[in-house]
């Protein structure tokens, strides 16, 4: 029988990895919400963020500055992807656009592998490696930092979509691009911002997770958990993506105790299938109503 301390220790681990899944889920949801494009290259944007952190660390750039540069660089990179690669094929079938995002991801991963190989590198977290001890529990300070950053990103995004002019424009474009255009909203600029925010969050996920899992070309595998989290949350909801990510992290961690490590990776997918059978639009998604 496991004690309460062990359950809490597992919960900390689950929330820490779940927070990373939540960030990836957010990065997937935002451009999908704004432009209907499902970005399968999102995992590699996280990988890119991790390698950017590695390069900046090699130049002794302080963590705070690296944090800002990775966010900014991610945003600029996202804008460039939208302008140069996505917009020219925006009117192509949805499948073509999805394959293009997949290709972008592969190109990023290949370029990284050519330069750095498959070696796993270490980067320092902002608060060192010494674990924090409290009430018989132990936690890596970087893990807590990831959870804190995820909460901050969620709050900022919620405020952005509720109060900022660009955020409200994105919501309008997501609802009806034609009507938004007639109301004077620049739809392409809105898409550009959506990609910028999404890529910045993806890069942030990579920067945050790098000290915990090491910098390697396989960080992009996070996209599978991010997708599960996004679908769990309803795919168009900010809160849903975050709750979905944390849920996947917790389910995975506790599943390894309940059913063993062999099957733990299956459990989130089984939960997802069961949930979709009961609530086809996810936890926070709403059924689309077409008025005729």
């Amino acid at each position, binding site marked *: 029988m496991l004690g309460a301390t*062990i359950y809490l*220790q*597992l919960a900390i*681990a*689950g929330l*820490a*990895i779940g927070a*990373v899944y939540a960030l990836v889920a957010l990065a997937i949801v935002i451009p999908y919400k704004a432009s209907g494009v499902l970005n399968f290259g999102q995992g590699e944007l996280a990988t890119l963020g991790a390698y950017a952190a590695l390069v900046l660390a090699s130049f002794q750039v302080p963590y705070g500055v690296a944090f800002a540069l990775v966010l900014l660089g991610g945003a600029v990179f996202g804008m460039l992807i939208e302008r140069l690669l996505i917009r020219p094929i925006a009117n192509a079938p949805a499948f073509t656009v999805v394959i293009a995002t997949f290709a972008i991801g592969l190109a990023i991963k290949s370029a990284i*592998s*050519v*330069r*750095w*190989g*498959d*070696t*796993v*590198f*270490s980067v320092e977290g902002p608060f060192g*490696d010494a*674990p924090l001890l409290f009430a018989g529990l*132990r*936690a*890596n300070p970087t893990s807590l930092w990831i959870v804190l950053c995820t909460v901050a990103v969620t709050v900022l995004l919620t405020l952005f979509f509720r109060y900022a002019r660009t955020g409200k424009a994105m919501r309008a474009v997501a609802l009806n691009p034609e009507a938004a255009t007639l109301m004077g909203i620049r739809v392409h600029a809105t898409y550009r911002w959506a990609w910028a925010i999404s890529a910045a969050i993806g890069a942030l996920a990579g920067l945050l*997770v790098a000290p*915990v*899992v*090491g*910098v*390697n070309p*396989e960080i992009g*595998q*996070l996209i599978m958990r991010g997708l599960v989290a996004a679908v769990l949350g309803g795919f168009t909801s900010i809160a849903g993506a975050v709750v979905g990510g944390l849920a996947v992290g917790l389910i*995975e*961690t506790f599943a*390894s*105790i309940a059913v*063993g*490590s*062999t099957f*733990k*990776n299956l459990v989130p997918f089984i939960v997802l299938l069961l949930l979709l059978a009961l609530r086809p639009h996810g936890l926070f998604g709403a059924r689309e109503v077409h008025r005729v």
Partner: protein
Amino acid sequence: MTRFLLWAASAYLVLAATAASAQTPGVAADQILVGIVGPISGPVAFLGLAGRDGATLAFKEINAAGGVNGRKIQMQFEDDAHSPVRALASVKKLVEQDKVFMVMSVGGSNATGGTLGYLKERGTPLYVTTASAPEVTYPFARNLFRGASTESGRFGEVYAEFLATHYKAKKIVMISSRDEYSRNESEFTVAKLKAWFNIEPESRLEFNNGDKDFTSQLIATQRANPDVIAVFGNPPEAAIMLKQARDLGLKQPFFVGSAIVDSGVISAAKGAAEGVKGFVSLPVLPGSKHPSMQKWEAAYRREYPNLPAGRPSTFDVIAYGEAYVVAEGLRRAGPQPTQESFIRALEGMQNYAVGPIASPRSFTAKHHIGNLTLSPMEVRGGSWEPVQWSSTRPTEILKRYE
């Protein structure tokens, strides 16, 4: 008349030699074509990239020194993408289309396994450098040879002896990845611990390649309170596990399987890797302060100035040394080598090594396992350094070949 007879005899000998060369695949008057197969794409591309580069440099050096019995070694590389199907297609191309003299495999067990049936049937010599799957050398096939990476069973023997005598461990927790290589190492270790030392692991846990969190396994380990924790898998997961073990306050020593004994685990886990021990089929590893290795690494970097970080790796060194073993076999096969004379030459090889960075190879006509020696290593001061320990128990894996 005498002059005519001498001329005729000489002409006959030249023609006969040319005919023999023409019948032997891959052998021309001025070169021998060697096929190499390994993954340069897919999840273990690091094996094939290192294997290709290591062998390329060795053959370049050998050719610069005059080649083998007057012939240059020409190398033809094919990607197997770590897939048995792709490996078989690549090997078929090398044998049937390119008509290579022999095949050298620098890939993993999964892919190499896919080629064994075909090569046994064709009789083309295969020299395996890194795959440890037992079926490469057992059941015995006359044309299949194993170089650096010894059989999984030998890893199990040495690991069990080290755990029981060096650590004097009674309680051992084993954490293994679910891939074939790691499972083999783990299974053979468990079997020998039981058979030789009557030790049963306190607990056996598993994880998946690609996992990012090992808290549940480490908490279970903590509860078992073992004397030593043995981990079998790959460097990325091992590095995360080592860091999380430190975060959770685990104080027990870590022993790791051979795939983890690589500079990658140190660059990823940094201080958390200090004190970790494991075995490798080389006497000295890249990154070591050993003068021979430092000299070799400098030469390697001159040849490949744009190597990614983490290279040269263990697999660069292995492929380099194994290419020299193949070349030595070709040299001993004589001026008119055939596949049969090459096999006989390898079977007569005893303790051959290109230098102090490579472990020696010995083969016999009864078994083709070239290496039974594994070197213990420990992470000290940020690099893998040798540990003073030697196996005293004779191996039992050769009994089945008697």
